[in-house]
């Protein structure tokens, strides 16, 4: 059983390596962001498997933390992507800058 889990861990790591290709190549920013998201989720699965193989109960806590914070980079990506479009109009306002988003 441990051998099988180790092999599947290696398989997931190979998937992460393939995802890295998209991070390196990805023609657009959204593609890089999506590949990073996939690597994050694959990392969560790898951590769950690693915790089972190495008998580390605390590895699930690390996976829990990663799962909680998985959205943050993407939120920052879409919000900051707007700042270029919104910056021109927002700095013209007097009360201070505003980031308005449609979602």
């Amino acid at each position: 059983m441990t051998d099988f889990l180790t092999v599947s861990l290696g398989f997931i790591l190979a998937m992460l390596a393939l995802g890295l290709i998209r991070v390196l190549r990805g023609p657009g920013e959204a593609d890089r962001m999506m590949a990073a998201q996939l690597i994050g989720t694959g990392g969560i699965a790898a951590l769950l498997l690693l915790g089972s193989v190495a008998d580390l109960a605390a590895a699930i806590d690390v996976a829990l933390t990663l799962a909680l914070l998985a959205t943050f980079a993407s939120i920052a990506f879409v919000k900051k992507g707007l700042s270029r479009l919104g910056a021109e109009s927002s700095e013209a306002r007097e009360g201070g800058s505003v980031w308005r988003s449609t979602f």
Partner: protein
Amino acid sequence: MTFALALHIALAGMMLGLAAWTIAARETFAAVVGFVVYGLFLALVWVRLDAVDVALAEAAIGGGLNGVLLLGAAARLRATETPADAERPRAGLRLLAALLSATVAAALAAAVLQLPEPAPTLAPAAAANAAATGLANPVTNVLMGFRAMDTMLEKVVLLLAVVGVWSLAPDHFWGGRPGARHEADPQGTLAFLARVLTPFGIVVGIYLAWTGASHPGGAFQGATILAAMWLLIMMAGLADAPPTNARRLRLMLIAGPGVFLLVGLGGLAFGEAFLAYPAAYAKPLILAIEAAMVLTLAITLALLVAGPPERGAAP
């Protein structure tokens, strides 16, 4: 060559390749994404090396706060990328920098490889005295018991960092609210996420801080998650950033190092030395300090990411 060894070599190779690409990438945004992914791999490596406390800190900071901070910086720098590209140093200078970095790395590797076998370490002494504080997690023992002075000074350094970030504000905005005001569709995706995720995140954050006494975790990791949840609420527009001249905010910022200092002085008055815990009260004192630290750290980290004040204090 067992399968596990091959996995380790593959993981190390991937990380080194990714690091090299991150440094060489032309676009700031691409380099930032590479760095965030690098942090994820690093968390995996820490777990593999049995350092779960460090892995928790790496996952929390690298996966959450670092991404927000660096992506914000990359967006601000977007306008300056073309002129900055034109100012790249000549190839000769870059080669010199690469040689210097490689020399430092080689010196470090030589120092590590030449350590005597077994390497000198205080770990057995720390493990033998673990009963002194009554906590089961050896990392927390070192952080809060044997090396408490360093931990207290780190909290003061974080406070100075917040003051430093605030000092970047233009004079007329001093004391104002940090960052731009976020507005999002209250029926939209972001607001939904903030409403559903935040209560859960708060529970997990407090759980991580609480369980640090006996399992991997601790005040820092829990506080990072709490800070991330507050940032999420601010980014979804459900609450505005507080004005930096608010008295309650400033009181909470100094609560952590303040309690630490008080306990330390109490050690001077009632015990043998500064930061000496009386044996019977060691565990409750440490837990009290950690509670104050979680509050302060959460606010500090969130304010560091939110940035210097960019608007007035009025809502």
